[in-house]
């Protein structure tokens, strides 16, 4: 059930595609809808500016017991920063940090959100707040060109801890460059009081170079698609929570960590070595905290809150318990606890002795033999034309699909080409005269003058060797050689392969 206010706000969220600028008269026409007409009950709410903090800090708890209109000003900055010692990266950030500024509001608050894209930005950005109820979570409403600013309003309907992130194409790249953060919507009764609160977020980085390779690294889309990050990090850089930058607590204190995963892809197995979470709010839902959890699973684009009392002094390592990420890719942070020892709870090392276990079994050979057999069967299928080969008719049919997807734009459906621009294939003396040359032309492309049926053409055909497989080229040529009055034998993929591999 929605009250009228919520309808109004939903209307603002439903707004159309290009809400980029707030209505600002001096900047010409705006396609923004203009500020939402808030009802008097909302207008009467006290207005406050949200306090934003960079990680690992969290804004102070909300003390008020009433709703407010909260103004959030978040700036998008593209900045070069340190990914690891000697390794630089151009981070795309909300507020200059990875993760972005922590936003803290209260259930029922009406949030006037301003996204300001710094003039030095190369790209447009936007924000999808998982705390928003409405299409895109604010993404369409905040799509903002460099040097511009967007505004939209939403009401925080559901309490909890939510991820926000950029949703501009290509989304994985924007997130992969650091565009994520957390927004906490406190329940009306507030979060239970606690001694220390911290903000930690995990995200992975797909750099062109391997882990530790020095210099300014760029984003590698191939690695992102394969989900092979070079870095998996807490708070955006190796060592962001280590040494002097470790988070701290004193013996006897209760600690709460607001932990989120920006991704773009990986799920985290969040664990603090040597601690048991007294309480975990699974998936950051507030209703049923779990007690006594060792490791909690946090999905990409999700969050959790963990609480624990620190009883024993020392350094506690926070990890993604998918451990090569922690030890080889950087997903590691520290909590330093100061105070007096309690050897009843934790004694320290008491005894050091030698232990001889049984030798590990050697693996059997049977698996190896099975694999060899499978290879043999596969090779047999491949070499038997009755099974693997295509009849000419099938090739023509398949080739037609290739042609209609790729070739017809220039050579036309009827194979007659475009006079003055693209040569015909139907009855083409040039093409029919030399089958190998035809294969070569498809593979390597062609530029410069060519005379077909007495007419000279001078245009460019792009090479298809990176686009089409040998089989597809064989099929499309078989189609072309057997259409529009042309006749010819089928092409085989081996013929194509031979030309593909020929030396110049």
């Amino acid at each position, binding site marked *: 059930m929605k009250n009228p206010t919520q309808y109004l706000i939903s209307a603002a969220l439903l707004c159309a595609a290009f809400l980029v600028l707030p209505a600002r008269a001096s900047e010409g026409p705006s396609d923004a809808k203009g500020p939402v007409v808030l009802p008097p009950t909302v207008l009467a709410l006290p207005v406050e500016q949200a306090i934003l903090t960079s990680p690992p800090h969290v804004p102070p708890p909300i003390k008020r017991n009433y709703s407010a209109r909260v103004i959030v000003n978040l700036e998008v900055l593209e900045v070069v920063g340190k990914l690891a010692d000697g390794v630089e990266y151009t981070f795309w950030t909300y507020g200059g940090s990875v993760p972005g500024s922590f936003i803290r509001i209260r259930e029922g608050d009406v949030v006037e959100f301003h996204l300001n894209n710094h003039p030095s930005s190369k790209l447009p950005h936007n924000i999808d707040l998982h705390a928003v109820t409405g299409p895109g979570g604010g*993404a369409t409403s905040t799509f903002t060109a460099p040097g511009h600013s967007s505004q939209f309003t939403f009401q925080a309907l559901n309490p909890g801890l939510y991820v926000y992130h950029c949703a501009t194409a290509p989304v994985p790249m924007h997130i992969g460059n650091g565009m994520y953060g957390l927004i906490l919507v406190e329940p009306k009764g507030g979060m239970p009081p606690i001694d220390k609160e911290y903000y930690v977020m995990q995200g992975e980085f797909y750099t062109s170079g391997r882990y530790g390779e020095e210099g300014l690294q760029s984003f590698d889309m191939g690695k992102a698609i394969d989900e092979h990050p070079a870095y998996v990090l807490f708070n955006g850089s190796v060592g962001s929570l280590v040494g002097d930058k470790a988070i701290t607590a004193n013996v006897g204190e209760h600690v709460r960590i607001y932990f989120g995963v920006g991704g773009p892809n990986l799920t985290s197995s969040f664990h603090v070595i040597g601690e048991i979470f007294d309480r975990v709010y699974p998936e950051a839902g507030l209703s049923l905290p779990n007690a006594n959890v060792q490791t909690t699973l946090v999905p990409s684009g999700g969050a959790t809150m963990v609480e624990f009392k620190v009883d024993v002094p020392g350094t506690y390592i926070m990890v993604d318990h998918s451990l090569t990420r922690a030890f080889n890719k950087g997903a590691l942070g520290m909590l330093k606890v100061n105070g007096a020892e309690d050897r009843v709870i934790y004694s320290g090392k008491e005894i050091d002795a030698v232990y001889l276990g049984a030798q590990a079994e050697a693996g059997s050979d049977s698996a190896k033999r099975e694999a060899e057999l499978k290879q043999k069967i596969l090779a047999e299928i491949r070499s038997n034309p009755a099974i693997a080969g295509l009849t000419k008719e099938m090739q023509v049919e398949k080739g037609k699909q290739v042609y209609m997807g790729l070739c017809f734009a220039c050579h036309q459906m009827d194979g007659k080409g475009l006079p003055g621009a693209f040569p015909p294939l139907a009855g083409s003396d040039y093409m029919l005269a030399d089958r190998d040359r035809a294969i070569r032309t498809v593979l390597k492309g062609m530029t410069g003058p060519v005379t077909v049926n007495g007419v000279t053409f001078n245009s460019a055909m792009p090479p298809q060797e990176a686009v089409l497989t040998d089989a597809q080229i064989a099929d499309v040529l078989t189609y072309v050689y057997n259409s529009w009055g042309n006749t010819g034998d089928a092409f085989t993929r081996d013929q194509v392969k031979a030309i593909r591999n020929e030396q110049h």
Partner: protein
Amino acid sequence: MSTTPAFRLGALALGLLAGVELCAAGIENRESKIENSAMVLIPAGVYVPLQRTAKDPAQVAVASFRLDAQPVTNAEFLAFVTAHPKWRRSQVSRLFADSSYLENWASDLEPGPKAPLNAPVVRVSWFAARAYARAAGKRLPTTAEWELAAGAGYTGLDGRNDEALNRDLYAWLARPVPAVLADVGTAKPNFHGARGLHGLVWEWVDDFNTAMVTGESRGDSGLERDLFCGSGSIGANDTGNYAAFMRQALRSSLKGNNTTTSLGFRCAADLPTR
């Protein structure tokens, strides 16, 4: 590909001649521009749209055309605003250029230290770029034309696997916009002889407002009919080509009066009819 060098030289020569012709026919005194306004011939080819509807062809044939060999420089734009006071920073209507138009220039008619004369002009709106092109007897390239020209590598027609080009492009993408842009001459020419299509600045295209993404890029596979008439895109053909996505996203975020610190332009022209 043995014909390549000769072909390319021919194209360049033709382009140069054409550039001179155009300037001679220009409607204003632009003597200083002649050497800079060289154009190159982009041969006919195919453009593969990044996003298309189910009914659209996978490839679009593009007729050959001429394209400026390099982006328009501050010096060239200075000549333009000198001749056309309406487009000076202090006089332009906010409808046609937002408040950061030429903001890096020292004054109306003085680019100054942050805008070296031979660096590409940026912080120009689409309306301003269009007016410039019109004054030069040219036009802005279409998306298809621009992408076709920029699809070439340094050494061949197809830049997709040109490692050197991709390295330069991605290195550029990985860096923030420098406070002062480099001279256009520092960019390496591509196969067509055009410099700086990648790795210098983004560039306006004439039909930038055909980029029909909503900012909610995840939903663009089915644009809401209430927002956009017509069938939505069926999505991208080459999801790995993220540089193209970034250009698409940038175009769709812009309005005609917008200017940014990394957005310039160059002009195109039809081939003379024979």
